[in-house]
């Protein structure tokens, strides 16, 4: 007899509500009218049966009684957690707690994922000249790395979108290169147009065993359609399509692209030069090929009095994430862990009992090409004590936080500068520069100091400096060695 819990992808102690939700989600996908793969109809019938049993408390109890104890099959994926302390302190003020979570693939996985990607290329007037030529070159170079069985499409957009290459298998593509080279710069920037067209191309060829991804290349601000873009990203995420963004030059809206990417679990990057575009595209595609599961979802509940004040994905691509459930963590790679850090603010009223469940939820993902989601139930329970926990925090967490601190100082400085508090912003920049010098990041430190001077002189930061500092400190968060940090350390102009 199959394990009904496994079939529905729920833990054995799942609530009736959880069972119902899992059932509905599966039925939506597996229903004979909608399913797409052989064998899914049979699976659908099994799921039906599982639900009939598990939704009836009496039958469920009978079933549970004869169910063998869970087989401890080695899970292909491992979830580890690290806490900044092991107890919460009973005090009358708000306290902080840091939790680092790490998801890693333990199974050997040699498969190389096939792609279903669309590039949305900004060809607005501001791209005119060398910039557009560089992008064209970068894209045609990148195409050489495609596999014959990869699906790809290319969209050029300004204030309207034009599908240069409809979604097709790479081996069927013809004369794409000449069409790319024929692209002319003109018009304004309406990212929504390009994004929507690219999204539709990916959606048309959507396949769960492929990597379904939209990559946006833009150099400018979009006008008035930011909300529409974010809603589109939400829609894409629901359908299992990720969006990543490459910002070219210094005029684009970084916080918007960050938000756009984080809605889907994608990533956002800063390309200062032509080489950067090629390097970043190659880097992204290398990661795509290594993808074990494309969409890692973290659903959770937090009790009253607990607030999640910060979530940051540290690896493989650094990005500030949303702080509410469901959290899209993005792809899990087969060779590299997916690491994210959460900062909790815990108010005194949450600490009335002897222990507190700071968070309850689950991390779920579906390996590419598989129909069985893996799910990791998670409950972060801490005893409440009147004595502080004397044990030092784990080194991995301190290290991660030390690097993240630099990024946050930068964020803080930008916020302070924006709200007109130049004195504080300058001071924060100086702190940041000291830390950077301490870490040997001299060129980045110099940029920070130049920005601090500029702030005092002109009352604002330069767009370019802001981005160099932001993405420079962000690159430090993930860099494993000095070389990597240096490589991303953009030159000072």
């Amino acid at each position, binding site marked *: 007899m199959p394990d009904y819990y496994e079939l529905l992808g729920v833990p054995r102690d799942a609530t009736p509500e959880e069972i119902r939700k899992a059932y509905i989600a599966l039925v939506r996908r597996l229903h004979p009218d909608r399913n797409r793969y052989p064998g899914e109809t049979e699976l659908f019938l099994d799921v039906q049966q599982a639900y009939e049993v598990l939704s009836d408390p009496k039958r469920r109890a009978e079933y549970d009684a004869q169910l063998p104890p869970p087989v401890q099959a080695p899970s292909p994926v491992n979830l580890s957690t690290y806490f900044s*302390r092991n107890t919460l302190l009973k005090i009358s003020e708000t306290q*902080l707690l840091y939790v680092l979570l790490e998801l890693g693939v333990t199974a050997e996985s040699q498969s190389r994922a096939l792609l279903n990607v669309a590039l949305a290329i900004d060809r607005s007037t501001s791209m005119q000249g060398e910039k557009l030529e560089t992008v064209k070159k970068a894209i045609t170079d990148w195409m050489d790395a495609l596999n014959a069985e990869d699906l790809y499409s290319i969209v050029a957009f300004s204030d309207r979108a034009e599908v240069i290459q409809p979604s097709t298998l790479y081996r069927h593509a013809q004369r794409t290169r000449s069409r790319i080279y024929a692209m002319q710069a003109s018009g304004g920037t309406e990212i929504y147009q390009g994004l929507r067209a690219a999204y539709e191309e990916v959606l048309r060829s959507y396949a769960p065993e492929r990597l379904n991804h939209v990559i946006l290349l833009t150099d400018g601000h979009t006008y008035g359609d930011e909300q529409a873009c974010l809603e589109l990203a939400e829609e894409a995420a629901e359908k299992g399509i990720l969006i990543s963004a490459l910002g070219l030059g210094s005029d684009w809206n970084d916080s918007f692209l960050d938000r756009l990417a984080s809605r889907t679990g994608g990533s956002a990057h800063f390309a200062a030069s032509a080489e950067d575009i090629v390097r970043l595209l190659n880097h992204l595609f290398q990661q795509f090929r290594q993808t074990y599961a494309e969409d890692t979802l973290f659903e959770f509940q937090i009790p009253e009095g607990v607030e999640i004040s910060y979530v940051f994905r540290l690896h493989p691509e650094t990005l500030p994430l949303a702080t509410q459930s469901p959290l899209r963590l993005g792809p899990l790679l087969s060779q590299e862990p997916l690491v994210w850090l959460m900062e909790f603010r815990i108010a005194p009223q949450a600490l009335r009992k002897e222990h507190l469940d700071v968070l309850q939820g689950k991390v779920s993902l579906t390996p590419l090409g598989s129909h069985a989601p893996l799910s990791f139930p998670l409950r972060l329970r801490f005893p409440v004590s009147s004595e502080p926990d004397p044990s030092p925090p*784990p080194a991995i967490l*301190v290290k991660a936080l030390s690097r993240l601190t630099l990024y946050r100082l930068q964020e803080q400085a930008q916020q302070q500068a924006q709200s007109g508090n130049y004195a504080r912003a300058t001071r924060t920049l100086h*702190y940041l520069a000291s830390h950077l010098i301490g870490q040997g990041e001299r060129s980045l430190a110099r940029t920070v100091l130049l920005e601090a001077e500029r702030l005092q002189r002109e009352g604002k930061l330069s767009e370019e400096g802001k981005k160099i500092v932001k993405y420079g400190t962000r690159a430090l968060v993930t860099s494993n060695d000095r070389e990597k940090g240096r490589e991303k350390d953009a030159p000072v102009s």
Partner: protein
Amino acid sequence: MPLCPNCQHHNPVGALFCQECGLQLVASEATVTQNIRTDQIRNSVAELQQVAPPQRIVTTTWLTLHLLDTGHLLPLAERSEFTLGRVTENQPILPDIDLTPYQAHAHGVSRLHALLRRKSENVVVIMDLGSSNGTYLKGQRLEPHREYPLAHGDVIALGKLKIQVLFRGR
């Protein structure tokens, strides 16, 4: 409420790094320093335990600065890297060694002028940090941001402030 020793900011309980200036506020399990440099943490715990005991070595003076104009001696110990400069109002980065008491301003020392780094037991290098008036070693102006090895008894000049370097508290 943990008070930051660097900027006096009151941090919430549980903070690991100062929210104002980014200073590390707690010791991690693998390191006991209050330094924000974390590259060493990665080393395995075993490795660190081997390195950890001889703490006395760390606190021994490895270099003494002899200020030729005033005759002052400044011993350098504990850390393996020091920045030299002078402190003023609205200071960008505080140098580790403030040379203001030795007429640094009059001698043309920049606020963040140069860096001394101990590479190994007997190898100490100097690097100019892009100072306005330059750093000189035996009369030669140094290229900024490049390391130059020093020998015991060498005279360096930050602008016009002459300093003799004496290895190990000799």
